[in-house]
Structures are given as structure tokens and as C-alpha cells.
């Protein structure tokens, strides 16, 4: 019975998102961004071992995909609380954990659909327009890339839901989420670079301190696992973190890539789970009175 309640909440959460005009516009814009950047990359990229994988604009995805997670989660709780529907919901035979679990599940389902849709449409259109050859190796790696992107964006979804649980106003939630996105998703590398240069005078891209500090940024783990670079943010570090160019480096087997980047993958998988748990607990302890 509890499980069914969770799915009902999840279904309603999905329905809310799918019928939200703003969300649909964002989905369309995001898909167009991914497609156009991938299409243009295909015109300039010539050195990669796989031209199709090299055409995928990972930098653009790394910077803008988190917005999807933020849009899905920033008002997940605060909207229900502000509208009073949360109190109404709890008059039904529903527990708080059913509600938060359902919302998280629904948002993750929509997120997965968006990621799969955008990647598949972009790659599929590229294949039709360019007529490039695609092999088994590339299909598998695109599939793994899609999963990693899902977990990467889930981090921002988890953070958005957590912030939504903690604040009392949707606008505040959006503001905080945008700040978080800008800080750890876009400008973390640039800020870190500036801070290190001011404090130590070291502008080298390869110091141990930089590597350790970059571990705090999800974009670092995503960038390293996919393309083997330590940062993909705006104005950040531009150096390779490994001899293997991520899972897109077809000179190495996928197993070798996964072993090489296992820590990054673990971080990408565990971080959203931790954030979901924290959001879950925070919601259970939340004062939901208006």
C-alpha cells in the first residue's frame, strides 16, 4: 500500500512537470542546445579516436544540464507547502516519506526521460544528417554516458529538492539553486584558479592542491569520467586528468575506462543518493505549517 502511494505521488509529479509550459519550453531549448552544439562539434572535431563521440559537446552538457535538475526540484516541496496542498495531502492516508519519495522518484523519472530524449535525438539526428558510421563500441559508450549524465544532473536535482525542503519561498529556492549551479557547476574551477593564484602564486594546472579541491565539484568527476579532463567549467582548468580520455577514449576498453575512473563514477552515484537521503530526512523533520 505504501509503495503504491509512492508511485501515485510520483505519477502526479511527472504529470505536473509534463503539463508545465515552462518546463516543456526548457526541455525543447535544452534539446536544441545539445543538438546544435553536437552538430557544430562534428564540423570541427577531427582528431578523436571516434568522431561521433568526439562530436558530443560534453562541455555544454556539463554546464547546462544541471538546469534541468534545478527546474525539476527547486519548488518540489516549497510549492506544495506554499499552496497548502501538502497539508491536504497529509490528511489522506499518506505518510511524509511517501510524499518525498514519490516526488523524488517522479522527478528522477522525468529527468531520465529528458536525458535519454535529448541525447538520443541529438545523436540520431547527427547520424541521419552526417551519415557517419556508428558501431557497437560507440552505442555502448553513449549508453554509459547517458547514465553518467543522469547521475550528474541528479546531484543538482537532489540539491534542488534539499534546498526546496529547507527554504520557505520558491523564489529563494530558485535563487539559491542558481547560486549553487553557478558556483559548483560553472565557475568553481575559475574561482579556485583565482584563489590559488592569489594565495600561492601557483598557476600550474597540475598541483595536488588543485586536484584535491576540484574533487568537491561534481563537474570535475563528470568531466574526468567522460572525457578525462579535470574541469569543463567556464574559465577553469584545462588539462587532462588521466592518460585515458574518459569513456569516450576508444583506444581503451570500456572496462579499462571504468576501472580508471571508478572513484569519479562512485562520487557521481553516491552524491545524489546522499543528497536525497538528507532531503528525505529534512522533509520528515520539516515544519509544514504555512
Amino acid at each position, binding site marked *: 500500500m505504501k509503495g503504491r502511494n509512492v508511485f501515485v505521488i*510520483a*505519477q*502526479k509529479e*511527472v*504529470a*505536473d512537470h*509534463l*503539463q508545465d509550459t515552462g518546463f516543456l519550453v526548457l526541455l525543447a531549448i535544452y534539446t536544441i542546445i545539445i543538438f546544435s552544439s553536437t552538430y557544430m562539434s*562534428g*564540423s570541427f*572535431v*577531427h582528431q578523436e579516436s571516434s*568522431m*561521433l563521440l568526439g*562530436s558530443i559537446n560534453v562541455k555544454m552538457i556539463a554546464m547546462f544540464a544541471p538546469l534541468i535538475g534545478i527546474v525539476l526540484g527547486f519548488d518540489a516541496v516549497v510549492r506544495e507547502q506554499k499552496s497548502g496542498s501538502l497539508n491536504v495531502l497529509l490528511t489522506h492516508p499518506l505518510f511524509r516519506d511517501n510524499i518525498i519519495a514519490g516526488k523524488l522518484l*517522479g522527478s528522477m*523519472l*522525468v529527468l531520465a*526521460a529528458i536525458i*535519454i*530524449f535529448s541525447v*538520443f*535525438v541529438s*545523436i*540520431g*539526428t*547527427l*547520424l*541521419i544528417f*552526417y*551519415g*557517419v*558510421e*556508428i558501431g557497437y563500441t560507440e*552505442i555502448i559508450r553513449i549508453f554509459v554516458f547517458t547514465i553518467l549524465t543522469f547521475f550528474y544532473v541528479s546531484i543538482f536535482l537532489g540539491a534542488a529538492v534539499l534546498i526546496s525542503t529547507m527554504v520557505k519561498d520558491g523564489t529563494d529556492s530558485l535563487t539559491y539553486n542558481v547560486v549553487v549551479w553557478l558556483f559548483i557547476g560553472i565557475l568553481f574551477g575559475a574561482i579556485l584558479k583565482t584563489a590559488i593564484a592569489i594565495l600561492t602564486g601557483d598557476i600550474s594546472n597540475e598541483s595536488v592542491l588543485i586536484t584535491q579541491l576540484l574533487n568537491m565539484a561534481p563537474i570535475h568527476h563528470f568531466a574526468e569520467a567522460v572525457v578525462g579532463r579535470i574541469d569543463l567549467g567556464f574559465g577553469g582548468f584545462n588539462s587532462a586528468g588521466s592518460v585515458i580520455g574518459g569513456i569516450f577514449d576508444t583506444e581503451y576498453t570500456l572496462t579499462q575506462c571504468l576501472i580508471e575512473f571508478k572513484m569519479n563514477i562512485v562520487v557521481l552515484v553516491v552524491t545524489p543518493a546522499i543528497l536525497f537521503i538528507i532531503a528525505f530526512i529534512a522533509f520528515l523533520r520539516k515544519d509544514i505549517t504555512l
Partner: protein
Amino acid sequence: MFIKQNFKKLGIALILIILLTLPPASADWSSVTVITSITGKVVLPGDTVEFPITIEKGHNNSDEAWCSLSIKDKSDGWSAGFYNDGDQVTGLTFPEDKNSSKKITLRVKPPINTPNGAYAIWADFKPDDGDTISQEFVVNVDSEAVLDLDIYSDMPGLETRPNDPVEFYVTLENDYDHRVTASINVAEKPDSWDVEFLEEGNGKYRITKTSIAANDKQNFIVKVRPSTNVSDGTYPVIVDVALENSQIGVSQQLDLTINRGIEEEKMLTIFPESKSINLNPGSSREIVVNLRNSGDRTLNNVELKIQGVSGITTFVRSFGAIDELEPGESREIPVEIKVRADASPDTKEILMRAVSDEAESEDERVEVSVVKSSSGGFIGIGMIIGALLLLVFIVSKFGRR
């Protein structure tokens, strides 16, 4: 009747007189017999002439026999001697209980300044038992006579560019009954031209003399390199072959035409492994290009150059230029041809050229046909349909409020 009988006696007497007055070509009473089938020959002044002679031990003679050989009479300055298997001999021995014969040669050489005319050589064959046999040999010296050495070329006229060497194949034929040795020289050539005589077998060793067996012939190469600044025209190169002993000889004129207008033979050549390949957009293929030094000089800093074509990228996988490429040497250079993802379906030509400090090759073309992958297109359509179906499924399943 009396007259008839007198005529018969007279006839018999004449026959006897004639028989008795004939020169003694052989002596039936001697232990050896000398048989000469040829006793007169024509020769050039300074050339050598040979008369074959057979000496047989007399019939019904079972004892050992010997015969000394000598020249009784010859003109001043002439050389004459008897030869057996290439060695000069003065006597022959015949074993007992064996009727054998021996072949010897009388070799006569008149001086180079001998006037035309008939000259007699008298040879004495003195057996151990019996009378000496004298034989006359007549040598007719004629400065218009044909030498028994012939020289010719099947292709005595060739055409080339300045400084490009050519090779004439020349045949020297020995019509003598004995081996001759001849020296080969250039009698005439344009100034500053290089002419060398090469052994035909490998075209590498230079020759100055040749030795040809009796009634045999020998080929050799006359390699001619005209000078760089020679003007167009036909130039003779005369090859002189002189017999070693007599200094008389034969010559052959070879005509080399210089024509700056004919196509230059490339010293550097390239051979792409494939001249036509099909590629999908975004795919690549490696082909091997063979660089060869077809000339006879070492080439320095040999490099493969490839002209870029829109939509196609090429990478020459080598450590820059080849320092030295020896004559006949070749190198294989891998070249990766990569088609850009946005290359339109078309057939494009990649131009390749090898360059060095000294020469450059002709342009070679590799045709690259860009063909869209049908399988990639189907997969692309499948991915879009899959994505749309996923969206439809989610909307239909969860879209209802």
C-alpha cells in the same frame, strides 16, 4: 697404225711428265703427311691470318714418328708461327702403333704498313724419316679487306634530355677462328659529355677491354650522359674497338639526340597502395604510400606532401623528411585519410607529391568517395523513434493528473 701407237706412247709420257712435275704436296715415302686445304688468304695490313694444317703419320708406319715445323721463308717484318691449342709449337710427336693426326695452325701477321700485294710464306715440315716437305702459303695483303671483327647496335640512335643519361646496347662479334682481345675506347664525343662502357650483366662495372671467343659475340653498354647546357640537336658518339695485338679495329657511331621538349623521367616516384577508396563521413582509413628513388643519385630530405581537400583531413605518419634515399631504395609511409563528419557525399581527389632537395615526383591522385552510411542513418532514425516512443509512453502513463 704406227702413228696411232706413237700417240698412245706420247700421251702416257706426257701424263708421266705432268705427274712428275707437280709440287710435292705430300711425300708418300715420308713418315708423315701434311694436308693443307687452304693455302691462300686475304688479310688487312696488321691483321692476323690463320691457315689450318693437318699432319698425319704415314700409312703402314707403326714406329714412333716426329715432325719439326719451321718457317723457311717470309717477308721482312712479318711474324709467322705454328700454333696448337693456343700454344706456339715447333715440333710434333706421333706415338708408335697408332695412326693419328694433329691439327695445327699457321698464324701469319703482316706489318701494319705492308703495301697491298701477294706475299709467299714457305713452311718446312721435316719428318724424322724421309724428305722435308715444303709448303707455300700465299697471303694477299689488301687494305680494303673486311676485318673479322664486327660491331653493331640494334638501336644506334636515342633521344634524351640534357643531363639525363641513356644507355646504348652494342654488340661486338668475333668472326675469327681464334679468341681475340680488344680494347674499347671513345673515338669521338661532344665536349664535357660522360661516356662509359659498362658490363651488360649488371650495368655496374666499367670495362676497358673485352675478350671474345672464336666465332662468338659479346654485348656491352655504352652509357652516355650529355652535359647540362647542351642545346637541342643530334650528337655523334663514336665507339672504337681495336684488336689488342694489331691496333686495327672497328667503330660504331651512336647518335644521341638532345630534346629539351620530351617529358622528363622522374627520379622520385610515389605509388599509393590504393588509388580509390570509399569512406563514410567521420571514418578514416590508413593507406601506405611507397616512395622510391628511381634515379642513380642519392636524394636528400625526401618528404611526402599532400594537398588538402575540403572535408578530408590527411595525416602523414612519419618522422618528418627522410634524410637520404639511395638509388633504388624505397620507403613506405603510412597516410591516414579521415573524412570529416560534415563532409557531403562526393568524390574528391587527394593530390600527393614527393619532394626532395634534388627532384620531385609527379603528382599521384587518390580518389576518396564519401558515402553516407545507410546503417548509421537507420540507427539514427531508430534512436529518434525510440526517444519519441519513450516520451509518448511517459506522457500516456504519467501525464494524467
